[in-house]
């Protein structure tokens, strides 16, 4: 029982990054109907920014702030440079544009920085454990889950209690109607990318503290589970995306450590994908069914 509880905590820690990525993807999908395949790139840029500034000897907490700032700015820049001009185009053009941006960023880092991972120093506390009754938890997992919960609470507040958040939610439901109410299209979309970038930056900081390296494929590698989580949750449903992220993390953790015998642990991904396939057979709209779908 204790072992299961520890694996669940481990899974929630892993799922935190997925949830933050998925939430950003859902926000962008909401206002633009775009599955943004470039949403991993702010994480890549954050990783290299951290690598570069780590050489100057900045402390880990300053590097974490660098990661958040770099990802936010990257996301805003991707929208302003990449998407603004094609915003009126059809969904397929937008999708291809997002692929193009992702490929471009990866290629740029491969050509001009390095194709191999670049290491930087990690803080010492990530190897500590804390005891919580019978549970021995990694300090890292506790920090990750704590930071993620605070971030999600802040995002919830922003979306529910500020005019920016209201405009974002209104635009996600009916973009033209939101414009008729006076919401500025540029600002809403730019704001959605900024918020999504901020969330990706926090995820990046949490990952980088542990991993201590930057590589060109980093964004892509984290984008895929994030995207999966967003789809599991019912694409565009914000709460669903968060739930999908945590569910995916816990499922991975349980399969790897507990359900599958050691000799089969290499099949973790296959087992998790099988589970997702089952989910979509029984709930094609994802975990959280959209109220809109019910009304039809």
């Amino acid at each position, binding site marked *: 029982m204790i072992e299961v509880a520890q694996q669940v905590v481990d899974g929630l820690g892993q799922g935190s990054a997925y949830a933050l990525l998925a939430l950003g993807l859902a926000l962008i999908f909401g206002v633009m109907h775009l599955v943004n395949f470039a949403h991993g790139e702010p994480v890549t840029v954050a990783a290299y920014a951290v690598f570069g500034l780590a050489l100057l000897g900045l402390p880990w907490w300053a590097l974490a702030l660098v990661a958040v700032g770099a990802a936010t700015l990257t996301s805003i820049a991707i929208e302003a440079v990449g998407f603004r001009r094609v915003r009126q185009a059809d969904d397929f053009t937008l999708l291809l544009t997002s692929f193009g941006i992702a490929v471009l960023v990866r290629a740029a880092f491969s050509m001009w920085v390095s194709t191999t991972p670049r290491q930087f120093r990690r803080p010492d506390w990530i190897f500590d454990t804390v005891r919580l009754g019978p549970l021995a938890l990694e300090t890292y997992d506790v920090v990750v889950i704590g930071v993620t919960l605070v971030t999600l609470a802040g995002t919830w507040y922003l979306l529910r209690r500020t005019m920016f958040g209201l405009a974002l939610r209104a635009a996600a439901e009916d973009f033209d109607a939101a414009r008729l109410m006076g919401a500025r299209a540029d600002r809403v979309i730019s704001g959605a990318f900024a918020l999504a970038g901020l969330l990706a930056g926090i995820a990046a900081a949490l990952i980088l503290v542990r991993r201590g390296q930057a590589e060109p494929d980093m964004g892509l590698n984290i984008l895929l589970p994030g995207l999966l989580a967003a789809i599991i949750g019912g694409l565009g449903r914000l709460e669903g995306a968060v739930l999908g992220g945590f569910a995916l993390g816990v499922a991975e953790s349980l399969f790897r450590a507990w359900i599958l015998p050691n000799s089969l642990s290499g099949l973790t991904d296959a087992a998790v994908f099988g589970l997702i396939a089952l989910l979509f057979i029984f709930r094609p709209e994802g975990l959280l069914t959209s*109220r809109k779908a019910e009304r039809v």
Partner: protein
Amino acid sequence: MLAVEGLTARYGAITALRDVSLHVDEGEIVCLIGPNGAGKTTLMSSVTGLLRPAAGTVSYRGEDVTRLPPDELLRRGLALVPERRRIFADLTVEENLLVAGITVSSGDRRRRITEVMEIFPVLGEKRALPAGYLSGGQAQQLAVARALMTRPRLILMDEPSLGLAPALVKVIFQLVARLRDDGTTMLVVEQNARKALDVADRAYMLRTGRLVDEASQEDFARWSDLFESYVGG
């Protein structure tokens, strides 16, 4: 106050509006009637900047506003109550009103929510309910209330009586008359032509994308036969 000159609008290869010219003077209620597919909603979308017209101009208070986005027009005092209401179903009634007041200061926003809830008491009762749960009549009241949040000079209403019970249709048109008395100018699109003409000062008739007739109050009687034939009165 509003002048449309030679407006032509297309959806791909389909021309939905052909060379339409009309005007709305300050303090008037002008009614635009016509059967389904006549281009009434296309005209509303073109005037409010949701749709870029292929040709022609829209001027508002003496300025060319043809290429301006909807939010800018709203800031200048032109509001639209869109067809099928388009309320935000996942937002509460109060949040719908807050969003509609995004262009005014936060103090005014609060004051005006109180004002519109006095006009439509049911919105006050349901303020915390997601707007998707409102009945058709309540949702229409919310749609009109949203437009009132900015105290617009000119309100465009697209089918305000659509799907409403007769008693509510009456309430909506009473409100239209009252808004006019308060100095608001209105362009009302209606299939419910008789009700609309009761309050209108002038009217235009649109059919298959063209203006086919124009009438002032004295001429409305002349249109009665037409309603029987295709508008469906």
